[in-house]
């Protein structure tokens, strides 16, 4: 290129070199993006502008990510502007995201740039399938979106538009329209927005209320980026009025025997364990915890803020409160449970609630409840067991709040007395002991490895097949840890193994890590 070309003056191409106002709406199919698009087009047309909207519903109509795009501009001397059919990265005035990760996606598409873009986004989450199917916690990190918004947006208006819409009996599109008006990026008055909604007819009243609430919310000033406050869940841990002197002793023991960093977790653990069985079981919990804490101290846990004890307090409680038939029946028959369902369903006075449980007990569960010796005897007789299983093993629809079914569940839920002698308890206790033994042995030589082994308990969860798969992953993980326990980076490998085990249900990722370990161990 010659130098003079660079210095050439660029004459304006015409009177209006400015570009139309461009608005991209990023949403998931079924979120009402089409309605919002129509409103904005109508708004612009009511002011004599030329407005064009495009969308690609296609297969995205069903829960997929999709994008609606609007351009609008006044005509010039009767000439219509030529409007583009898709957003250009770096050239979008307003991006409206109907979900927080979709806001992130719009940034990745380059639609949000600091010189131009007002980002209006709802910070509520609607989880993608990939986030939901992980056996562990697959939820994407919203903080990364928050960080990127700070970089990319010129102006940001972020709050839970969805919750606001629901609170006003409407849908998110109305809230987004209100936020758009509040943002003041379009040269149109608030009333002209309202005119558009009011013409909508059905549901217009709720839409107007939602619009106004969102408008005020934006006008009220700085928008917070924090996730919306979680509603306090209705507690299903039952309680009685009479204080228990034995319980008081346990609380005193807890405070006395355990280090400060572990106290919170131990309290939660103790609560769960007692709720599961009885106060004596709580004493057992503290006994075990005391032993583990002693090992922690010997291993120099003070330098690690007693992470071993704290982790033990958490996972020991989970291990001791295994999910058996008694626990399920107890939880299902509690008063707090029905109250929670009623509040979730927003039931009013004149309505009647009934619930149906989908139970599928197998002979294994029944056997688990039997006294250990009898259970083992039965377990050694596969033909008899099979015969019994054919009678037990089928789906049962349990009408929880019909008297006969409730009584049945109530009786089962009250069988705690049998629990400690049961086969299931024996199996769980043996498993727990060998796990704690492995952790205790490790913590003496490699502190972090001890902690990691405790955390492997997270792999055991679910019922029936899922539970067996979890157990098998747990076993494979501990066996693999055994291979590397003498290495300095054993704890890292343990963590890697556990994370892999939580990635998919089949254990493919876990097998991959195990294979890697076998190449050098």
């Amino acid at each position, binding site marked *: 290129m010659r130098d003079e070309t660079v210095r050439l003056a660029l004459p304006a191409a015409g009177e209006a070199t400015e570009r139309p106002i461009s608005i991209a709406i990023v949403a998931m199919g079924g979120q009402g993006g089409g309605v919002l698009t129509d409103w904005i087009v109508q708004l612009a047309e009511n002011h004599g502008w030329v407005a064009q*909207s*495009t969308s690609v519903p296609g297969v995205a109509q069903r829960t997929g990510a999709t994008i609606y795009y609007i351009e609008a501009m006044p005509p010039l001397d009767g000439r219509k502007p030529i*409007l583009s059919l898709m957003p*250009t990265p770096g050239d979008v005035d307003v991006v409206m995201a109907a979900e927080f990760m979709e806001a992130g996606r719009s940034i990745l598409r380059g639609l949000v740039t600091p010189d131009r873009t007002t980002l209006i986004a709802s910070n509520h989450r609607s989880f993608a399938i990939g986030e939901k199917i992980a056996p562990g916690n697959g939820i994407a990190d919203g903080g990364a979106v928050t*960080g990127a918004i700070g970089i990319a947006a010129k102006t940001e208006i972020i709050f839970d538009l969805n919750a606001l819409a629901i609170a006003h009996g409407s849908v998110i599109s109305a809230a987004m329209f209100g936020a758009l008006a509040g943002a003041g990026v379009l040269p149109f008055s608030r009333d002209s927005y309202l005119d558009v909604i009011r013409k909508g007819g059905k549901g217009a009243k709720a839409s107007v209320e939602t619009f106004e609430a969102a408008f005020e919310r934006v006008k009220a000033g700085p928008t917070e980026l924090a996730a919306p406050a979680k509603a306090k869940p209705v507690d299903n841990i039952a309680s009685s009025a009479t204080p228990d002197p034995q319980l008081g002793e346990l609380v005193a023991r807890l405070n006395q025997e355990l280090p400060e960093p572990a106290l919170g977790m131990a309290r939660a653990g103790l609560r769960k364990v007692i709720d599961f069985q009885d106060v004596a079981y709580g004493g057992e919990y503290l006994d075990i915890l005391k032993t583990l804490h002693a090992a922690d101290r010997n291993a120099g846990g003070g330098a690690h803020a007693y992470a071993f004890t704290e982790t033990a307090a958490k996972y020991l409680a989970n291990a001791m409160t295994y999910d058996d038939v008694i626990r399920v029946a107890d939880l299902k028959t509690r008063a707090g449970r029905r109250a929670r369902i009623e509040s979730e369903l927003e039931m009013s006075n004149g309505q*009647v609630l009934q619930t149906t449980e989908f139970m599928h007990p197998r002979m294994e569960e029944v056997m688990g409840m039997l006294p250990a010796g009898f259970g083992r005897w039965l377990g050694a007789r596969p033909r008899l067991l099979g015969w019994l299983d054919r009678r037990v093993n089928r789906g049962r629809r349990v009408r929880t709040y019909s008297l006969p079914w409730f009584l049945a569940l109530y009786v089962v839920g009250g069988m705690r007395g049998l629990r400690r002698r049961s086969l299931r308890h024996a199996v769980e206790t043996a498993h727990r002991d060998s796990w704690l033994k492995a952790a205790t042995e490790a913590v003496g030589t490699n502190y972090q490895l001890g902690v990691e082994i405790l955390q492997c308990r997270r792999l055991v969860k679910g019922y029936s097949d899922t539970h067996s798969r979890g157990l098998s992953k747990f076993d494979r993980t501990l066996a693999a840890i055994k291979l590397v326990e003498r290495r300095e980076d054993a704890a890292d490998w343990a963590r890697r193994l556990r994370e892999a085990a939580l990635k998919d249900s089949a254990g493919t990722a876990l097998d991959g890590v195990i294979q890697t370990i076998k190449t050098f161990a």
Partner: protein
Amino acid sequence: MAERSFAREVEDLRLGNGDTFRGEGILAITKALLQSGVAYVGGYQGSPISHLMDVLADAKDVLDDLGVVFQSSANEAAAAAMLSASVMYPLRGAVAWKSTVGTNVASDALANLASGGVTGGTMIIVGEDYGEGSSIMQERTHAFAMKSQMWLLDPRPEHECIVNLIEKGFELSEVSNTPVMLEVRVRACHMHGSFACKDNVRPAHTIKDALNNPKRDVGRIVLPPAAYEHEQEKIRTRMPAAIGFIRDNKLNEYMGPKQGKVGIIMQGGMYNNVIRALQYLGLSDAYGNTQIPLYIMNVTYPVIDAEVAEFCLDKDAVLIVEEGQPEYLEQAINTVLRRKDIQARVHGKDVLPMGGDYTAQVLLGGVREFLEKTEPRLLGNRPPAPDATPVLNHPAVEKLKQVVPARPPGLCTGCPERPIFAAMKLVEEELGQHHVSADIGCHLFSILPPFNIGATTMGFGLGPASTSAFNVKADKRSIAVMGDGGFWHNGLTSGIGNAVFNKHDGVFVIVDNYYTSATGGQDILSSRAINKRRKTNNSIVQAVKGIGGQWVRQLDRTYDVGKMRDTLKEALTTKEEGPKVIVASSECMLNKQRRVKPQISKAIKDGTRVVKERFGVDEDVCTGDHACIRLSGCPSLSVKQLDDPLRDDPVAAIDNSCVGCGNCGEVSEAAVLCPSFYRADVIHNPTRWDMFKSKVAMSVIGWLQRRRDRRRPALEALA
């Protein structure tokens, strides 16, 4: 008909002189057909042209007033064959479908039609499903136009231009005795815009006139020697006639300055984005006032040699903006220029990408490179063009790439197809993985998480046919899935008939949800609704048996996961020979909700006893392993983080969009998952008996609950 009403859109079809139409592109096209005096319209639904079919199906009164015949064709081949009405009679006709998939199906009829030629104007409206958001393979309809010699219109994406071109297109078709294709891209179909309407025109000659006065001419039938004659006619008569008409009526447009060292030639559909790219370069204003000469091909086939030559004659170079591959136009224009020995250099795919959407951003890059190579002075002082790369390269944004999850489409809340795939998943766990041929339709989402079922898809209704090679004795059998839409489109013969005839041992699952749901819920032969204008309620099972199927099982409630699983297992293991056909029927939930929701609201309002069902999860019973989600993927079944320090993983949760389809309970029961699911039945306007029963039960239950609670230790001390 679909549970959605298009009454408002039908009103748009009634607009006349002096009115302004405001709405979607595809509706503007529908209106343009009526303004052109069509005598008949047919087609097959599919994005992006479904709306045309939907609105016409609801527009009986308008069409009857005009004497226009409308058919929901069985498939695109049937639609194309319908155009034969215009071969002998001066009837204008139009058909529409999704392309290139529909054009593939229609090709046989189209080739015959184009060979013999037409008397009445015929127009094929193809929704070019290309680029972002497309649901099909990335190909161009252009090839079909060339191979059969049908004229291809590609109008600027502006309602006025599209409508005008449709009206002219019919004339072009008649003048040249050739079918005309109108190509509209997805975004243009869904584009909101406006145009000044004209009155609808009654067809001068009606279908009835034609039936009453039959005509024939063996010279129009594709059989030697006529077929050879047709080819000569195409070359000697029809092509020159078309070229003459296109030139005389200025269907292609020149814009910008007359003179210039460089110019841009483009498909009409590319115009808006080209203007935007020029605007970024400071070479046009927003109103299309360009500094670079443009030649806009609203007709992309045939290429008008004389127009191209005239445009290129005094230029050093031209850029051809042609979306998709291969670059037919670039090749054609090169040929023109070489033959006429015009020296303008031709750029195109050397500066623009071979495939993919030509967005304003892509075009900006291509035009800039073209100008840098040929006439850099035009770029002036290079005003800053929009550029998101600094943002995209920022570490915080880079990090985001790993975070933002993919969001593939999935089955709707309460979809009746979900339990079918959940059952298949359960069978897979028991009998191992099988070769599964998928088909086109909502059920194709089975190939995505969480189901991950299905190895191939070979086209609409071809799922069963694509297992036909797997017809040997082996330890496992092949499974084919096909929807009711695909079944009636061609699957009955190509799939089931084929399997019966060849004694195929495989399993064939026909997913019957009462509509062609994926395309918007249109009625088909087996739809259960009463449709006054069509004969519905024709049984798939009867059809299968009629064609020779012996092992046929009908499941009337797909949500019965246990039965579904057992039936599949039986089909995979039975000793019986021949195809094992399972027809799994339940109504599409999207359409059902549209139908039922208002009825339920009204009943509750009127004080009638109504039981509303919804599912829920007991969060303290749920262990957070998400096995249920891996067998479901229902949008209303999600996860939530509990405020409990003892819990690491989120638990399952069902939000209030749940429609109570029952899948969750059935799956957890059949798969022996866990007891945390419950179904909540809320009785609205309960009877006195309901109230009494509940009151008695709850007073006893309350007493029992208080009794047990008194015995529990007080845990407040630990809160």
